[in-house]
């Protein structure tokens, strides 16, 4: 008989708690739009913050709540993911050109001589807050690798010998994490370009030509030869530094051939 009482008592207790739990669950029910979960599962899930939100979940919440998707774009997922999200939500997605990060500095030690030794904390932000850097150029890459740590996709690497930052374009998602982490704003986001063709000035030095030349042999001296040779008026020289407007540049590469210091980089066309 004991076993029957025991089972009956447990069943009764179980039923009682089930009823309590049912009412509690009804009382504290949180309604969540099921589409948030759906959108989140479509997103890459890297939580990189490239869209400007705290993570993929926050992006999903905002995009579901918004009437218009114009202000939302996931740089990592790109147009493909945005189209899927748009289809799920029945909204219209905006097409954007895929971006890629480019490093605008070529000051390796053979071109840009070290004039002192930095011995403080191994962080670009710390070094930039302390002084003008260990080379004659106070504008360029510091080479302590804040961008390497910032990249969630393993796309940025630092050469241990030359202290030069290079970006693996196959890994780069264009989230902009590295660009935000760079205290000297050396890294810029530019469109990937048709078949990977990009032409950009790989220098951020705004010193006068003579000062730049003394500090680094690969630095833009602001001579303006590229401006004259450009058939599309895409190049401007401001503060002794040339800049190529990517909305106007057609990627012909004439400027790169003309540049006396080889500061303009033209990436080869991918096959």
């Amino acid at each position: 008989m004991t076993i029957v009482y025991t089972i009956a008592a447990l069943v009764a207790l179980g039923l009682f708690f089930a009823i309590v739990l049912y009412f509690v669950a009804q009382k504290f029910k949180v309604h969540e739009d099921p589409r948030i979960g759906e959108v989140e599962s479509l997103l890459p899930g890297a939580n990189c913050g490239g869209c400007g939100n705290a993570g993929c979940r926050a992006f999903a919440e905002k995009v579901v709540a918004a009437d218009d998707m114009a202000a939302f774009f996931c740089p990592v997922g790109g147009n493909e993911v945005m189209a899927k999200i748009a289809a799920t939500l029945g909204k219209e997605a905006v097409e954007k050109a895929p971006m890629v990060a480019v490093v605008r500095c070529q000051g390796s030690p053979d071109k840009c001589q070290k004039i002192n030794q930095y011995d403080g904390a191994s962080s670009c932000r710390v070094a930039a807050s302390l002084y003008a850097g260990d080379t004659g150029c106070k504008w360029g890459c510091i080479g302590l690798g804040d961008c390497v740590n910032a990249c969630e996709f393993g796309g940025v690497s630092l050469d241990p010998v030359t202290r030069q930052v290079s970006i693996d374009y196959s890994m780069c998602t264009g989230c902009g994490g590295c660009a935000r982490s760079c205290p000297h704003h050396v890294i810029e986001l530019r469109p990937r370009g048709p078949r990977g063709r990009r032409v950009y000035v790989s220098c951020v030095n705004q010193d006068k030509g003579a000062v730049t030349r003394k500090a680094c042999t690969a630095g833009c001296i602001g001579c303006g030869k590229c401006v004259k040779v450009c058939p599309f008026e895409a190049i401007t020289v401001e503060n002794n530094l040339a800049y190529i407007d990517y909305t106007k540049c057609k990627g012909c590469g004439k400027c790169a051939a003309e540049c006396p210091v080889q500061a303009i980089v033209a990436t080869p066309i991918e096959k």
Partner: protein
Amino acid sequence: MKKTFAMGGVHPKDSKLARKSAIEDLPLPATVAISMAQHLGAPATPVVAVGDKVKVGQVIAEPSGFVSARVHSSVSGTVKAIEPRTDLAGNLIPHVVIDVEGDEWLPEIDRTPDFKGDLTLSAEQILARIKDAGIVGLGGAAFPTHIKLSPPPGKTAEVLILNGTECEPYITSDDRIMREHPDEIAMGAKIMMKALGVGRCFIGIEENKPEAIAAMRIATIRFGGLVVVPLKKKYPQGGEKQLIDAIIGRRVPSMGLPIDTGAVVQNVGTSLAVYEAVQKNKPLIDNIVTVTGKCLPAQKNFRVRVGVPYSYLLEAVGGAPAKASKFISGGPMMGKAIRNLEATTQKATSSLLVLTEAETKRRAEGPCIRCGKCADACPMGLQPFLLNKLMRLNRTDEMEQEKIFDCIECGCCLYTCPANIPLLDYIRVGKADVMKIMRSRKK
């Protein structure tokens, strides 16, 4: 029992190598380059043109804002150029470059060594003279003195504190002026007391300077209201907040100003400059700079005109040996490394310290073992290990809750860390981030 501040602090070896060397006048260099940003606040605007003849003490730049100070020519000669030149950190700052020709002073400057003890000017006249003389705080921060001597509305000064602690190792410039010019410093204090309208003044001096304490005690007998307070040796006693705590036992509230405790702190060097400006009509054109370091052939204290290159200072003690690897303007704890020895001295330059690689090499950074030494050493009661971690994770709001803005950047945490973690380096960056956010919030 001698007084000191209550919380934290460290005891670095004081290494006052140049304390036996009397102040010498540094011979004039061939050219000086006078920086337009020698003070906290807006850089001054040059009022001379290239080719102008200037005399010692002539105004060459006027202040360009409320927090700014006048700049005077420290030499006589011709203005050669007004151009941007790199300062000791490598940043381009406008400089007035003057070719030295002779040593002709403005006639109104009293250059006699006689002591002038009579003061007939009113408080307003004193402040005007201090402002005209371009005096800034010579303790290191170079805050314009006339602003510090005019408390903001609603706040009143009760007491003046003279800072003769010189808690930074190696530096001996304040020690020497207290020993050689005690009467002038005491008179400077009297002048500032009149400007502030206070009746009391404490002069805080650390116990490792017994001659200075004795000299200042004798000087204060002549003047009423001045008391010399010998202090226990502890770094960073010369910090404004620490000195107020040590002498009058009051704490500056978080985010508050020292004036909230009723105290105004001035460096003894500033006091001497105030005396010279008010009684002798001499603007701030020179200061005492200690050139020191174990590796140097000699360690000396010089009276240096503003705008002399650091390399020239080194030559004056016989040049730096080949093994010298680090040059610091200021002391080893808070001084700034010099990137460019052609950079020139400023009004608030207190020392040129030369160290060898063996003395400065940082050991490899290890993991934090949560020993809490940095929290014990922090004179502001912060938790440096936590702030360092939060900064590396970019958690700005939590840094603000942990009062990162209270950090005085004294470097005690970094000095005491057994794992050699560059705590202060990271905290300084985090502090700048938090301050930026707090300022943007105010707007």
